[in-house]
């Protein structure tokens, strides 16, 4: 059980700013007033917890969880890693949800217009819960890069979207994972909303030859860090504690 202390303040200069004109959609969707800084209250220091009973056996297997007539096209990969907090402690019981395009760079979505083919055997969504050591893994195919309407010739590097629930609503995070060695990471207007190169590098999964399944799947390692909390030793107890 984690401490009851409040969370370290979020380092807003490490995250993307709200207003990033190179990513055009942010221009009209970015608040202009400063955020109101609020010391954590119980409302943010608590959060929903999801039981393993919610998760089906194929939820972390994107190769099989939508397949109709066979396996999806594409390079078979395993993505694994740990969810930690800023104190480098594992976050057990975290719900991870992920979604991605197929091997050709096409999403299964009615608003998606990219001409690459849909894969009848690929849905593109999955989820899992971290174990006692904060570990997770899932199996999928490597997503393709895709073009998107921003500049006339902008492309997203191959990526997997991640949504993470830690133990408190203050830790709520959505981010994206990229693949080691992809030159397109450094040309992407969404990646470049992250101000610090070291921040971008945190989102690049490493190819891990020791974790591959020989003759089957490559493996990528991706650790995720959520906000950490203070220890309670010098903090006033909340009323009712």
């Amino acid at each position: 059980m984690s401490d009851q202390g409040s969370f370290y303040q979020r380092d807003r200069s490490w995250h993307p700013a709200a207003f990033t004109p190179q990513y055009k959609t942010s221009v009209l969707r970015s608040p202009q007033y400063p955020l109101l800084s609020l010391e954590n209250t119980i409302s943010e220091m608590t959060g929903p917890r999801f039981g393993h009973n919610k998760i089906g056996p194929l939820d972390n297997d994107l190769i099989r969880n939508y397949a109709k007539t066979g396996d999806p096209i594409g390079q078979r990969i395993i993505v694994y890693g740990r969810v930690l907090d800023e104190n480098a402690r594992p976050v057990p019981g975290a719900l991870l949800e992920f979604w991605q395009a197929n091997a050709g760079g096409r999403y299964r979505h009615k608003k998606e217009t990219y001409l690459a083919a849909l894969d009848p055997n690929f849905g593109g969504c999955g989820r899992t819960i971290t174990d006692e050591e904060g570990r997770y893994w899932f199996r999928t195919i490597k997503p393709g890069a895709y073009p998107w309407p921003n500049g006339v010739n902008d492309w997203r590097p191959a990526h997997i979207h991640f949504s993470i629930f830690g133990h408190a609503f203050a830790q709520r995070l959505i981010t994206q994972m990229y693949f080691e060695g992809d030159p397109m990471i450094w040309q992407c207007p969404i990646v470049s909303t992250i101000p610090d190169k070291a921040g971008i590098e945190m989102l690049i999964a490493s190819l891990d030859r020791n974790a591959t399944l020989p003759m089957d799947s490559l493996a990528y390692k991706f650790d995720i860090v959520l906000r950490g909390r203070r220890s309670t030793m010098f903090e006033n107890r909340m009323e009712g504690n």
Partner: protein
Amino acid sequence: MFQRLKTLKESPSQTAGPYVHIGATPNWVEITGVWEEDLGLVLIGPDTRGERIIIKGRVFDGSGTPLKDALIEIWQADADGLYNSPEERRGKADPNFVGWGRQPTDGVTGEYRFETIKPGRVPYKDGRLMAPHITFWIVARGINIGLHTRLYFGDEEAANAECPVLARIEHKHRVQTLIAARSEEKGLPTYTFDIHLQGEKETVFFDI
């Protein structure tokens, strides 16, 4: 020799993008058969304690256009002001109320809607009671990091007036951006909470 602190930086946020629903609410975007039911759609059951209410609204961009691709999450206390979370140390919350919900904004109208219960009051750090409120988290294409705000209830004037969080808002006219007006729908109290990302009516967002 000094002792190096073992600390990590938080993973930077990235936009949820236009297809967040594939991961969050796949059934809603017709990806069926992967799992039965999208998480967070239903908050209340027959045994949940508390007053049934509806909350609804839209999310507007700086041009006044409603977002049709946003995802809204809410987090709230039960009718007695307790959170259904292992981090809740003040008592045991209603086991028939999770307190967390998730809904997309409608692809045509941009409206979101939750059927829930009215939360009880929760103490601030110093023990004073906050007014009843629901925490909101908004993500969408073009939003680089999820936005936290709170819904307060238009028919809780006395509680709102003494809420230590609302009191922190320096520009008093902006308090109104957090207060949902009450009406009635299907015989249920209905609170409309429109969120403005920008412009004169920009909602107060929190750095929590």
